């Protein structure tokens, strides 16, 4: 794929209901596939999105029907970008305990942020802590695309 590839863009908002994002993540996965992304790359992006969107609904908007989760996304053959913003009071990601520390290994939660960071090239949170921006840049965009 080349830098001249068309960029697919999406802007939408989702209900604050767990599972409301599933059709969106499926749509993004098929768009990535159409842009030549590999299966393992799509897996990582889907996982990062899953964790961000679930966090936004559960921890951000606290499943409040009156609040929405706002999503913007851009996909090209070499770059994935997404912004996920909830209407909650925000959080401080640096205060989330490291789940890989021995004393936290058996904690039931707290792994989402680690997974998001692991699969993305760059992850940033706004100052308020209610908006996360994901970026993944392909290192080998010429690899065999997903089947």
């Amino acid at each position: 794929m080349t830098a001249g590839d068309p960029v697919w863009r999406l802007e939408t908002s989702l209900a604050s209901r767990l599972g409301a994002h599933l059709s969106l993540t499926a749509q993004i996965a098929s768009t990535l596939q159409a842009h030549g992304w590999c299966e393992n790359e799509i897996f990582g992006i889907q996982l990062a999105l899953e964790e961000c969107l679930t966090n936004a609904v559960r921890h951000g908007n606290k499943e409040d029907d009156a609040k929405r989760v706002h999503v913007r996304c851009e996909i090209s053959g070499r770059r994935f970008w997404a912004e996920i913003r909830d209407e909650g009071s925000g959080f401080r990601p640096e205060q989330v305990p490291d789940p890989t520390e021995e004393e936290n290994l058996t904690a039931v939660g707290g792994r989402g942020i680690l997974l998001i960071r692991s699969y993305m090239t760059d992850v940033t949170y706004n100052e308020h802590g209610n908006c996360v921006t994901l970026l993944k840049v392909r290192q080998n965009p010429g690899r065999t695309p997903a089947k």
Partner: protein
Amino acid sequence: MSNHRRIQVSESNDVTVIRFVDRKILDEANIQELGQELFQLVEQDRRPKIVLNFTDVEFLSSAALGKLITMDKKAKQHGSQIILTNIRPEIYEVFAITKLNRLFNIKDDEADALAVF
């Protein structure tokens, strides 16, 4: 025996082999249901040796990992042994990133797990 909707249960001698119905373990309601069915295996059924075969699982979220961790805690309380098998590389990477490969006993396949038991 109760009906299971999220798992398939088979038995071989005293070993219980579990396979997952969902290829993508994502939906919150399904994950809750999955958790209850897994916990029942150790809490009510008191199955001593359990193999969780992930061969059909293509995707799981951290919420699903949470259920596995809770199951592992309950298993230790009740003296059950759990072994995870047939984890595809993408899923294994999730276990490695979160260092849960150190918490769980993971084997390549069912035969390896049965050899441990």
